[in-house]
């Protein structure tokens, strides 16, 4: 049995009754994660690699241990395929610069989706402008699900790159990633999956998925801010030029030129977010301890309950697919009440709710709304918090009657 009460005890921030319903934005972090960071700071704080004393060895070991944990977490073939970044955004930009600039040619097609997060749109827009490529966006149907028919049509144009999110952060839609990756690979495209809302919430197997790149953020999976992951297939990473350059990503630097380090360090220039990577390792341990299947089941239960509870409220419109095809994210609108006003009223009840475009303006434009209110759930979310949200909604409706 999944014991959510026990889980919550690991999160000091809940001690004062906060109902945090914004985990798709950033998650909370358990003591185990901050404790691992504090241990680094207080016991073996030092820089990694090429160090000649024991605390630096310890720091290096812990830093590299996270890489193996992440490798196992997403079942990558090798730790050489695990690159540390600040988060999903930097990971996607790394690919856009290092792979994109060299491989995308004038007239090439890039296929994105209207569901995507800005971080998976704007880097490609910039690349397309720089290299003279075109972008086409897969639309959604009325339930907020990607139009697979249109996706297949676009694949017939033999896109150079296909990039889409595993799960939409704005609607919670779980995209059929396996099928989509397989079709895109069959069409000859390089495929990036934005896993910012994927990896934190379900078991991910990048080899089974078959994508070329998979990007995600530590801070959305109980890890600290400042550390995220780019998974890339070794073959592609080997062929790519470095992204950032500087200390640690080189083999030799001479006035005449420079040779680069092996994978994965080729892509890790300068002093890394060491404490944060160590914290991320503790987050993976924590999630492994819970079991990703249990995490998924718990979120599903809360999401089902929330979907039902909110459906019952008059004047409330739910966006996105039915609960069976959505992750722990619910976006909605209230008649006559702007999402920001709702969020402000909820805040008075200590209910943390997101209101806005969720970094998905093209999607908002498509839905014809300026913004939505969004509740999102994670390992620590209680049904009771969903009830509190419902209470805040009713309070807002009373005020704005």
């Amino acid at each position, binding site marked *: 049995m999944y014991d959510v009460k026990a889980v919550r005890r690991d999160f000091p921030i809940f001690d004062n009754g906060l109902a945090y319903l914004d985990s798709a934005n950033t998650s909370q972090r358990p003591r185990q994660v901050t404790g691992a960071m504090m241990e680094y700071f207080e016991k073996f704080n030092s820089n990694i690699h090429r160090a000649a004393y024991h605390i630096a060895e310890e720091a290096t070991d812990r830093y590299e241990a996270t890489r193996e944990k992440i490798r196992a977490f997403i079942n990558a073939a090798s730790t050489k395929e695990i690159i540390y970044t600040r988060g999903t955004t930097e990971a996607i930009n790394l690919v856009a610069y290092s792979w994109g600039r060299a491989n995308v040619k004038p007239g090439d097609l890039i296929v994105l989706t209207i569901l995507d997060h800005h971080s998976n749109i704007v880097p490609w827009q910039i690349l397309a402008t720089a290299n003279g490529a075109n972008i086409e966006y897969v639309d959604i149907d009325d339930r907020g699900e990607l139009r697979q028919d249109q996706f297949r049509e676009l694949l017939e144009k033999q896109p150079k790159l296909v990039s889409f999110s595993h799960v939409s952060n704005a609607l919670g839609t779980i995209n059929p990633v396996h099928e989509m990756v397989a079709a895109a690979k069959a069409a000859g495209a390089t495929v990036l999956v934005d896993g910012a809302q994927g990896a934190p919430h379900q078991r991910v197997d990048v080899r089974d998925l078959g994508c070329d790149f998979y990007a995600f953020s530590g801070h959305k999976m109980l890890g600290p801010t400042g550390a995220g992951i780019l998974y890339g297939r070794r073959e592609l990473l080997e062929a790519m030029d470095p992204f950032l350059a500087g200390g640690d990503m080189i083999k030799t630097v001479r006035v005449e030129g420079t040779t680069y380090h092996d994978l994965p360090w080729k892509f890790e220039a300068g002093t890394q977010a060491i404490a944060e990577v160590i914290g991320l390792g503790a987050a993976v341990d924590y999630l492994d301890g819970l079991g990703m299947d249990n995490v998924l089941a718990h979120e599903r239960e809360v999401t089902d309950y929330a979907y039902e509870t909110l459906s019952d409220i008059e004047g409330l419109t739910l966006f996105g697919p039915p609960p069976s095809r959505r992750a722990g994210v619910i976006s909605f609108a209230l008649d006559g009440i*702007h999402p*920001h*006003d709702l969020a402000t009223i909820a805040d008075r009840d200590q209910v943390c709710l997101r209101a806005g475009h969720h970094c998905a303006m093209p999607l*908002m434009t498509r839905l014809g709304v*300026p913004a939505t209110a969004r509740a999102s759930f994670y390992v620590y979310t209680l049904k009771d918090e969903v009830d509190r949200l419902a209470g805040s909604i009713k309070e807002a409706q009373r005020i704005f009657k």
Partner: protein
Amino acid sequence: MSTPPSADDQFYREYILDHYKNPRNYGRLDHPDISHEEDNPLCGDVVGMDFRIKDGVIDDIRFHGRGCAISQASASLLTERLKGIPLDDAKRINKDDVLGELGIEISPARIKCALLPLKVLKVGAYGLAAEDEE
């Protein structure tokens, strides 16, 4: 530490809700002398204003837009204040005037909503760089 506004505060006072639900000077002018619109891309609020100027005085004014109660009520309140005053006086209206008129404590996250109508006035009527008003 900031604290959440307490449950019994008057954030959504009656007259703000009234201005939101029954906005004054709402609509468009035909052939306005000045017409300007601004949006707050971060939350999607939009406010636009049309001005008719006669002898340096704001003879008529309308606003349009969409957004949260704060931005729309603030726009409604501002048009009431602007109507009939010389442009030169309008020029002197500032942040504090607008926030004072709203009469509620506005959290940092919402202050841009409250000031969006003022930005429309400043940029539209005087061509001031938008950011100088932030």
